[in-house]
């Protein structure tokens, strides 16, 4: 009788190994996947009440901190003293709706390591510091506040960068929201409310939304023309009132429906300064999709430009445009399927300012520990050369003329040499999206910026880049240079 019992026993021990296999599968092999499943609230709940590190600017302005919970002295609550001004950059760390922004990108530094997990206990025994690290951001708080104020009730974004290092000086998206509403027990309802508000305050228009760049894209086309030698500023083009797109019924006209110059001929410089669509459509077709694509990709299109979090890739579809001259003509003026984020457009202005070299934008300057010692210094990361140094020089002169005598006079700052380019892109419905990109001072640029307005009832129907976005740029350059 022991025989059958022994066989059953063997079967049962085998079954225990099957259980062990199941355990290995779920607790070892698939453990990370299960832990990070968005439906699993445990990781966020574990963070609740824990101390997180500071997020401060270089001059000491606190934008996120943990304070002792007034209702429970053993617990911490997160505080965002600057509220909606820094919302999209700083993000939030909510136990109910997750994390976002720098709170997410730097979560592993900002989180407390006092979890009493075995590895933490070992670390504590070895004398390692378990207090959270803090991060210092490169943003200038005065410029950030000024940008937020300047956008006012508009839907839009402002991104300002240090051209040489890519350091973010301001990054604003409006309308905004106060991240602290996402910290309480009613966070899920608050979040739902943000998502259902028509103006979409939770949307990060600066880094997460792709828009048609409109005429600001002419900087890329002009760079391609100069780099390839297809045109110099003085190269003349025919100057019709309407440009007939080849192989198509459609035409392209200028904003004022008039010829660019005298109806006979106009130079590339004139076309750039006056933002003539007719001539840039013509020029784009002459350069060709592939050569514009080379410059566009050198300046970050169709690839990751590198930032604290993933930014949607800007779109220039060389393949589709190579055999479609009409579409190429429309794309050359930043319409049709060309798409880019305001952050990326600021980086393009910065590349022109930085002698043609594009630098990846970054908002965090350094990580430091609880005693203030630097743990990690964030070095500028070059994206690569976007255009030759010579091209950058010529383009700078052309952009300066835009501000002194062209569509961008609204961006002028008394006593300062400002370079820029306006854009008025097709938006939704009857509204257009005003743009301005530029930098200052021309001889030694310290700020490059992109101002983007998403056309709506607030900006009105007649809003153009020159009338609407350029004055905001002027104001911000003034604030920046005054500080």
């Amino acid at each position, binding site marked *: 009788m022991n025989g*059958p019992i022994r066989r059953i026993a063997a079967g049962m021990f085998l079954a225990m190994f099957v259980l062990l296999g*199941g355990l290995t*599968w779920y607790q070892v092999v698939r*453990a990370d996947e299960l832990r990070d*499943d968005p439906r699993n609230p445990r990781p966020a*709940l*574990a963070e609740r009440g824990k101390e997180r590190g500071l997020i401060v600017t270089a001059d000491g302005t606190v934008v996120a901190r943990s304070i002792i919970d007034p209702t429970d002295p053993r617990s911490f609550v997160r505080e965002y003293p600057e509220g909606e001004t820094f919302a999209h950059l700083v993000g939030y760390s909510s136990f109910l709706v997750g994390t976002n922004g720098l709170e997410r990108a730097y979560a592993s530094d900002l989180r407390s390591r006092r979890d009493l*997990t075995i590895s933490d206990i070992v670390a504590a025994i070895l004398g390692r510091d378990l207090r959270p690290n803090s991060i210092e951001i490169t943003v200038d708080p005065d410029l950030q506040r000024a940008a937020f104020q300047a956008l006012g009730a508009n839907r839009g974004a402002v991104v300002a960068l240090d051209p040489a290092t890519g350091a973010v000086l301001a990054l604003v998206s409006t309308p905004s929201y106060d991240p602290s509403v996402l910290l309480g027990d009613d966070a899920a309802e608050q979040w739902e409310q943000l998502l259902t508000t028509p103006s979409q305050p939770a949307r990060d228009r600066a880094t997460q939304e792709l828009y048609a760049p409109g005429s600001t894209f002419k900087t890329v086309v002009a760079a391609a023309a100069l780099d390839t030698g297809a045109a110099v500023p003085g190269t003349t083009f025919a100057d019709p009132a309407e440009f007939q797109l080849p192989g198509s019924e459609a035409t392209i006209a200028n904003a004022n429906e008039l010829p660019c110059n005298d109806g006979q001929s106009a130079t590339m410089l004139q076309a750039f300064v006056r933002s003539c669509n007719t001539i840039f459509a013509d020029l784009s077709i002459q350069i060709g999709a592939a050569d514009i694509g080379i410059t566009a990709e050198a300046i970050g299109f169709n690839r990751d430009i590198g930032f604290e979090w993933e930014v949607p890739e800007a779109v220039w579809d060389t393949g589709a445009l190579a055999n479609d001259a009409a579409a190429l003509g429309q794309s050359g003026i930043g319409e049709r399927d060309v798409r880019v984020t305001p952050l990326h457009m600021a980086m393009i202005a910065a590349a022109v300012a930085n002698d043609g070299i594009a630098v990846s934008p970054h908002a965090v300057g350094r990580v430091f520990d609880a005693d203030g010692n630097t743990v990690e210094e964030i070095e500028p990361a070059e994206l690569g050369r976007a255009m030759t140094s010579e091209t950058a020089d010529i383009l700078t002169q052309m952009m300066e003329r835009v501000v002194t005598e062209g569509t961008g006079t609204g961006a002028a700052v008394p006593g300062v040499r400002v370079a820029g380019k306006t854009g008025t892109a097709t938006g939704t419905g009857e509204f257009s999206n005003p743009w301005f990109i530029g930098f200052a001072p021309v001889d030694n640029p310290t700020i490059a910026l992109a101002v983007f307005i998403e056309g709506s009832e607030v900006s009105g129907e007649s809003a153009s880049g020159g009338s609407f976005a350029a004055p905001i740029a002027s104001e911000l350059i003034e604030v920046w240079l005054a500080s």
Partner: protein
Amino acid sequence: MGRNAEAAIIVAASMLAGFGVALVNFAKGGSVDAQVGLTFMVFAVAFGTLHFSMRAFAPRATPLLVPPVVALVALGFFQIYRLEPSRAGLQRWWLLIACAVASLTLALLSRGTTSILRRYRNLMLVVSTALLLLPNLPSDWGFPLRGLEVNGSRLWIVLDLGVTAMQFQPAELAKLGLVIFFAAYLADHQKALREAHRRLGPIRLPEPRQLIPLVLAWGGSIFILVWQRDLGASLLLFAGFVLLLYAATGSAGYLAAGGMMTVSGAAAAAYLFDHVQRRVTAWLEPFQHYADEGYQIAQGLFALGTGSLSGAGPGLGRPDLIPNASTDFIFAAVGEELGFAGTVAVLAVYSLVMAVGFGISFRSRDTFRKLLAAGLTFVLAVQVFLIVGGVLRIVPLTGITLPFMSYGGSALVGNLVLVALLVQISHEEAT
């Protein structure tokens, strides 16, 4: 290993319970309080009683069985304390009662031997059947003993004495009575059941008349499934019977027939009954049915995955997010807070208990005692496999609790009496 070493390990395991409670307190920001001392005292008194009963009534019994059981109860208890502090006090009372009943079992059996149980096998059958039927008593009549429906299953009886009401799951004791009956019946009839097979080519088929007990057991299981909606007990009893039948006869044909009956019964049940259907859906697609049927299993898997290798630490995870964590899903709760290290340790301790149980069976010379020891071990092992396998999606969830660890008084009493029976057999068969 002798009795003194056994006593030392029991004390150490009792300290483990107190230590666990202290760790949970720390995690919640508390400190060492009365709960810690009380838990240690209750464990020491309860298992001390059992230990001294063994010294008195079963001195030659193996000292290997009780210590791992104490460790399991201790691990389970601190998880219960962590999940439902208000129920932990009640569980402590049940532990005292369970150890007292187990000690009483040893005392009573020491007057004769376990052979008494064989003599009263028919009484065991009648009492067990009556116990199984008790929950079907009306829940609204004047008599103080009433049935109770919980979550759609009829497993509970309530003894309402006016001043206080007590709830009990009689199936936990009935399953012991039935294992005793099976072992006795099979010991008496093993010859008849083993011989006279019909041959159909190379396949040996049992005589139709020999299949009668199998069919009766199957009918009983179906009855439990249909009228009490207790999938777990139904499966457990039938599996226990089929395994014992194979153990007694060595005829693999019984295993095959029993296996086919289980599969066909389960398939029919899944097709016919909504409550079985829902469990199958939850088993196969927990994440697709996250909002309803699959929620419990999905949360269990999240708990295990988040626990990962070393666990969140006692009191530092969120096993309270799993519905019924302290009963059906206590294994997942352990997995979240103690990690893979903890769950593997738990499985290792169960394997040790099983090994000791099988060892007692192997060494028994008396057929009845051999079958009884095997049957009791089968019942334990099948329960562990069904519930842990259910949590790990190896089998559908059957609503069985984890022996020694889950919250529940009746199960603790039943399982410690089971341990007492194994202890008594090992004492009687020791040379």
